[in-house]
């Protein structure tokens, strides 16, 4: 039998990998920083691209569903910042730990929660990753501690996770993220002190998207050099729109921590396209021109796409195929999120305690009683 040659793309046409120049990081108390060149394989590139696109689409879908009132309450979107979570995840291992604040959907995905469970949590359904009990700000999975609503409170928590890493001695580290707004919280400085004293394997990461809600960094901080705010803790300032830059810096910081030298601070300069949350149009404290400029010059996904295409790591068609597949995945997830049933009333009082025999919980009046199981 003869073989039929089907006209198809021959993927052997593409390069396996390419070397890229990346921006040098500003350093604080460090002699050397991350390398300014890095190698990215085709496989890595496709994976980063796909992941960032999923997050981008997922966040835009959430925007849509929020406006349709299928998502309620707070919804803080991550579009524009995709390179941060994707680059960081590429720098660490699944056995490492991550904690962040409420702009958490991106990390929730990179840490392993499927899109459908994220969207179903936003719509408050029982198929949500927290069974509908947490919502946008309280999503968790293995080695991912949320999703935290109180600004800055996650930072001591992250150092505590790092303490456990050191205690158990399994060479794990904890990424502890916070925003430029949170960077002025007192408890962060208390944490810097203890993390440095006890040499905790904690990477403090400030995602500086230039605005704490409606307040620009210049109006909130006497020093906007967030990578220096750890004072006695070494720091680096990183281009947070470049996934490779974030990856290299993340690897550098992870190695620093794992070597037992103690904590390190990383400032990721990034940008959010949406306002602070869905109730903030995001244009009263910044201009549309500014947003547009970032979109056209620094969009993380476009940056990666251009790099891959220009270096023969992928073709435009291939990336378009990925876009289509991503769109399909997010649509299906949204479908699930709108059709999955809400949690049953019996679920209301469950999980108040952990590993506890069942007990009774008082309802709105003394005659309404719920059962609580763990």
């Amino acid at each position, binding site marked *: 039998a003869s073989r039929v040659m089907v006209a198809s793309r021959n993927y052997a046409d593409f390069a396996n990998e390419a070397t890229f120049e990346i921006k040098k990081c500003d350093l604080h108390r460090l002699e050397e920083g991350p390398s300014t060149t890095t190698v990215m394989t085709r496989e890595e590139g496709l994976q980063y691209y796909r992941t960032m696109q999923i997050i981008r689409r997922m966040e835009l879908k959430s925007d849509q569903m929020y406006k349709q009132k299928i998502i309620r309450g707070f919804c803080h979107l991550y579009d524009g910042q995709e390179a941060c979570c994707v680059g960081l995840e590429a720098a660490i291992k699944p056995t490492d*730990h991550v*904690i962040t604040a409420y702009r958490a959907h991106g990390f929730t995905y990179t840490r392993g929660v499927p899109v459908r469970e994220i969207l179903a949590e936003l719509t408050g359904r029982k198929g949500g990753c*927290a*069974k509908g*009990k*947490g919502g946008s700000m*309280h999503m*968790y*999975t293995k080695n991912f*501690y*949320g*999703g*935290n*609503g*109180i600004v800055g*409170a996650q*930072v*001591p*928590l*992250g*150092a*505590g*996770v*790092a*303490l*456990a*890493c050191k*205690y*158990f001695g399994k060479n794990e580290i*904890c990424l502890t993220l916070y925003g430029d707004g949170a960077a002025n919280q*007192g*408890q962060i400085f*208390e*944490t810097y*002190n*203890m993390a440095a*004293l*006890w040499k905790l394997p904690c990477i403090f990461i400030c995602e500086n998207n230039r605005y704490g809600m409606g307040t620009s960094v210049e109006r909130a901080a006497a020093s906007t050099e967030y990578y220096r705010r750890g004072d006695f803790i070494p720091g680096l300032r990183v281009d947070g729109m470049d996934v490779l830059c974030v990856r290299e810096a993340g690897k550098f910081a992870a190695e620093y921590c794992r070597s037992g030298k103690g904590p390190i601070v990383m400032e990721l300069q990034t940008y959010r396209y949406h306002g602070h949350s869905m109730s903030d149009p995001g244009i009263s404290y910044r201009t549309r021109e500014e947003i547009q400029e970032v979109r056209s010059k620094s969009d993380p996904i476009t940056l990666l796409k251009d790099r891959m295409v220009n270096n023969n790591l992928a073709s435009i068609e291939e990336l378009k195929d990925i876009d289509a597949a991503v769109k399909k995945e997010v649509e299906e997830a949204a479908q699930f999120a709108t059709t999955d049933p809400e949690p049953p009333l019996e679920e209301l009082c*469950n*999980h*108040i*305690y*952990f*590993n*506890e025999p069942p*007990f009774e*919980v008082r309802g709105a009046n*003394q005659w309404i009683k719920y059962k609580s199981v*763990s």
Partner: protein
Amino acid sequence: MAAATALRQLAPLGARLTRIPPHGRAAGRLLQQQQRRGLRLSAPAAIQVTVRDALNQALDEELERDERVFLLGEEVAQYDGAYKISRGLWKKYGDKRVIDTPISEMGFAGIAVGAAMAGLRPVCEFMTFNFSMQAIDQVINSAAKTCYMSAGLIGVPIVFRGPNGAAAGVAAQHSQCFAAWYGHCPGLKVVSPWSSEDAKGLLKAAIRDDNPVVMLENELLYGVPFELSEQAQSKDFVIPIGKAKIEREGTHITLVSHSRLVGHCLEAASVLAKEGVECEVINMRTIRPMDIEAVEASIVKTNHLITVEGGWPQFGVGAEICARIMEGPAFNYLDAPAVRVTGTDVPMPYAKILEDSSTPQVKDIIFAVKKVLNI
């Protein structure tokens, strides 16, 4: 010492058998020795142990039992504890298990909660619970609520402990009772020991519990010796969280209290007994989850209720007990409205004469009993 002499004079030839047993640690060692040799000279011997030593034993035993348990707080390690509760523990277990923190309550409480989320079992000491207000966000929003918000994925097996309520002469900022504040929140367990047995059993139970437990101790009780039964001396002795204890049985009126004021209630009860009034004294032991059934069962017997607490009256522990009694079957058994004896509704003053009128005295309890019983 006088008691020992007196006993020796009273006892006949069996003087050895009526010897006052050794105290504290020596007693424990003697017991172990006797058990090893298979010797038990007499009926199981209770020993006198201060609340401080009971807490110390509990910490020692739990640190030994589970490697994930560790203690952190200000002065807990090299200073042996601000109130010497952790005496000897740093020397025995070292830097990894007993950690001195800087004065950063919000920071180290958060670190402790994070460590618990990642699988350790911290005991976080607040030098007094007044300072826990600095960290209260971590206790409530991070520790208490996380199991629920994560739908049971992340447990927080942490103990927050330290002295609570009034001490002596420490004035307004160092004397507040937080039982009502912490007892308010679902997701927390809140315990309040009185005796050494309470202290030891509840602390061990708290450390072994997979949930955040707030343990409200009392500085004035630390130095007070109580009898520790042989059962309570065991390394596996725990008191179930959520169960009250009847310290004294009675028939005329129920006195419900927690922490130091349990002692005041017992004193009031013995004074009143001389006048023929038999008080039933209930030691709550746990503030949340509250054992209201124990109070109800008592009211069925006595038909009268007084709650006694050190904290302020408004929105206090007593207010909650009274509300629940009103809502439950015991209401029908009350012959008089339930009454509260509480701290005076004022920030704690310094001058002794004023301070004495700011927390309930035995006479205040006796007065209330007579009012309720109309005698």
